[in-house]
């Protein structure tokens, strides 16, 4: 039962901190760190309990019955199996590092206590997510994470950009989550269970049902993991505090989508074959879009954000190829090196007081520790031997190669190009930031922020060698990487680095000149392939238009209709005036005035008076009661007609009375 404590400790830290005053919360900011450290130790114990792994069956499970739904028991439960054990370690290690780092990073912020509390809640939700033994609990913690993400992106909510970014993130992921919820409903109606074992192993899925459910889950995963076309929130999410970006928007939460699909992969195999191809296509396009956009960003955090999108696309490629081991291994390595990069970026931003890499330079001399650790992360991300990224990328490339279908080979080409692009933009960032003219203001940061980065850098350097052990632990036999693929992958990385060095260190190409010469390409990449613009023009504008129409209808359209009617009538009456003078004219004006008065009255429905709303509410209640009472006697259509008439009558009287 002690496994329950792993998510419970940070949750308790959050619960303790919520009712505190701002000052007390600031004083208690070490509390989440203590809780996370406890979770870390327990995660090691859970790992040991799972050792040596290999089996798919959970080594521990617990569930509690909530209710029975349509005759089937609805229970939520937790389980511990090798995948969970690995994810627990990833989350707690990165979480503790980020907590330690945040103590230094946030120490001047007046509201830092709230930041730490939300970070604790987030950790609890993420740990619960990986421990969940069924899709329902997973979905619940998934949504709690979404809430924390929203709160942390909008942490500096007194500024405009974080506030907008938080709402954007919330709404965009919501689009995917609707798909998730539909998928869950379909899952329940077919399998009558949410339990992993029941759903994934003991249910004989038909192709159609499995397709529906897996597409729903995929939609949720695409929203959470920022896959094209739902990736637009992640770059904006960088408005939040950098350590939060490191934990949530690089290492853990955005990887939850990958985790979900990896968990549900048997379902994807049962679905129509094109579903997995679609997953691969989504991953390939995401990695390409993310990589290309990362090349042209000047904001260091945006580079890393697009890079995260690109790497998540990589994981989806692996999932599409049907290898959850490769995807999860890349998830693991990526969590370490990308959070390392974000932490480094945070230090750099603090030191230089800018996020624009054009205004940085020469930090290599003044900030040796930050430079060293950041370069570790950059090399890992670029896929350079022996850093961790090399191994996990190689896994994915090899999976694609062994699958051998035409689309997997096409994806392999895309993946290699993206690998080169990745190496290129990391070289660009590294040279711009660390080389060149020294920036006099920058100074090395304190030890409490260096240590977490050093820890992550150490892990990044060595964890790649665990590749076969990792696969074995998850129950797949895999040897050391194939030499040919390793050479091809390394060549791609080397090519990217070489081009980067040539352009940015030796000035081989004037990038501004390039921008000038290809204005159209520049416009496309500067606008992020027009995703945001399309959404704004299409969806947001459509909703805005609809809202505007309704608002006009509310305030002026009725008046307009009235006036228009009156004017039309009076125009025609003026024509008829010559025939029968004032009789018709009077009638017309009477009608016009009547309708105009009705319009004025209707306007008062929106007068903002609470009793008017109260009356309408009661009128609606009465209409519903009428409906409920009358339906058995006279049928749905007649009863709803009557109820509507009653509602209109009462509403009209309400308007008159108001």
């Amino acid at each position, binding site marked *: 039962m002690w496994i329950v404590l792993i998510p419970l400790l940070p949750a308790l830290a959050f619960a303790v901190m919520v009712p505190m005053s701002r000052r007390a919360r600031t004083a208690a900011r070490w509390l989440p760190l203590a809780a996370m450290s406890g979770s870390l130790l327990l995660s090691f114990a859970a790992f040991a309990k799972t050792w040596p792994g290999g089996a798919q069956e959970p080594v521990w499970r617990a569930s509690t019955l909530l209710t029975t739904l349509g005759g089937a028991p609805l229970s939520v439960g937790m389980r511990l199996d090798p995948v969970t054990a690995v994810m627990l370690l990833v989350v707690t290690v990165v979480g503790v590092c980020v907590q330690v780092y945040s103590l230094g990073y946030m120490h001047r912020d007046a509201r830092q206590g709230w930041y730490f509390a939300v970070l604790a809640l987030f950790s609890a939700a993420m740990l619960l997510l990986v421990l969940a033994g069924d899709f329902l609990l997973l979905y619940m913690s998934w949504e709690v994470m979404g809430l924390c993400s929203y709160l942390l992106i909008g942490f500096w909510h007194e500024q405009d950009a974080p506030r907008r970014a938080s709402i954007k993130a919330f709404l965009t992921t919501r689009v995917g989550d609707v798909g998730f919820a539909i998928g869950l409903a379909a899952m329940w109606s077919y399998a009558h269970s949410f339990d992993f074992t029941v759903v994934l192993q003991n249910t004989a899925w038909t192709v159609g049902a499995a397709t529906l459910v897996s597409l729903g889950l995929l939609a949720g995963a695409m929203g959470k993991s920022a896959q094209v076309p739902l990736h637009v929130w992640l770059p904006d999410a960088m408005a939040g505090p950098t350590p939060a970006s490191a934990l949530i928007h690089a290492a853990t939460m955005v990887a939850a989508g990958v985790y979900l699909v990896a968990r549900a992969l048997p379902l994807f195999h049962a679905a129509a074959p094109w579903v997995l191809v679609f997953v691969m296509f989504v991953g390939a396009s995401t990695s390409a879009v993310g990589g290309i956009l990362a090349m042209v960003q000047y904001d260091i955090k945006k580079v890393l954000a697009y890079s995260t999108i690109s790497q998540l696309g990589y994981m989806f490629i692996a999932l599409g190829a049907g290898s959850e081991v490769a995807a999860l291994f890349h998830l693991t390595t990526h969590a370490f090196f990308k959070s390392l990069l974000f932490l480094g970026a945070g230090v750099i931003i603090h030191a230089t007081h800018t996020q624009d890499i054009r205004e940085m330079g020469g930090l290599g001399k003044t900030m040796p520790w930050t430079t060293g650790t950041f370069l570790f992360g950059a090399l890992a991300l670029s896929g350079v031997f022996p850093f961790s990224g090399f191994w996990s990328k190689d896994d994915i490339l090899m999976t694609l190669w062994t699958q051998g279908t035409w689309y997997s080979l096409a994806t392999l080409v895309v993946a290699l190009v993206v690998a080169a692009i990745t190496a290129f933009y990391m070289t660009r960032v590294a040279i711009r930031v660390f080389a060149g003219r020294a920036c006099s203001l920058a100074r090395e940061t304190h030890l409490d922020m260096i240590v977490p980065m050093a820890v992550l850098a150490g892990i990044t350097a060595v964890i790649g060698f665990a590749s076969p052990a990792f696969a074995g632990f998850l129950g797949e036999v895999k040897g050391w990487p194939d030499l040919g693929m390793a050479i091809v992958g390394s060549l791609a990385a080397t090519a990217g680095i070489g081009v980067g060095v040539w352009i940015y260190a030796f000035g081989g190409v004037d990038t501004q000149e390039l921008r000038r010469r290809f204005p159209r390409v520049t416009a496309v990449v500067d606008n992020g392939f027009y995703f945001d613009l399309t959404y704004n023009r299409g969806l947001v504008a459509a909703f805005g238009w609809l809202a505007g129409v309704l*608002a006009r209808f*509310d305030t002026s359209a009725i008046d307009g209709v009235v006036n228009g009617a009156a004017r039309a009538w009076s125009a025609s009456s003026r024509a008829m005036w010559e025939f029968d003078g004032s009789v018709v004219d009077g009638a017309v004006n009477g009608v016009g005035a009547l309708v105009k008065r009705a319009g004025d009255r209707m306007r008062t429905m*929106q*007068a*903002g*008076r*609470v*009793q008017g*709303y*109260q*009356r309408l509410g*009661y009128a609606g209640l009465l209409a519903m009661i009428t409906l409920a009472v009358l339906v058995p006697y006279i049928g749905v259509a007649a009863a709803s007609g009557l109820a509507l008439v009653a509602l209109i009558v009462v509403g009209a009287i309400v308007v008159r009375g108001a």
Partner: protein
Amino acid sequence: MTVGPTAFMALAGVLFCIGLFGALTKKSAVMVLMSLELMTNAVNLNLVAISRFMTPASMAGQFAAAFNIVVAAAEIGLGLALVLALYRLRKTVELDRIDRLKG
């Protein structure tokens, strides 16, 4: 001659509807709160009466009514405090002058 639960229910219904009428019409926030109290009282009467005739031994309705009185007392206290705060802010307790919700 005696009466059963139906008479009490009808009485409670009448009281409730009088209170509802007051809550819907009165322009003074204090009057609205008083009408709400009348509605609460009608509910309490109903609870006690039904409990008296249906489950006389367990007194379930009496407990519900007691807690309802607690909630109603809290509500009227908060409501009147709000009215006072509103009065300080807007110098009026007329509900039809308070139309910040206007769309």
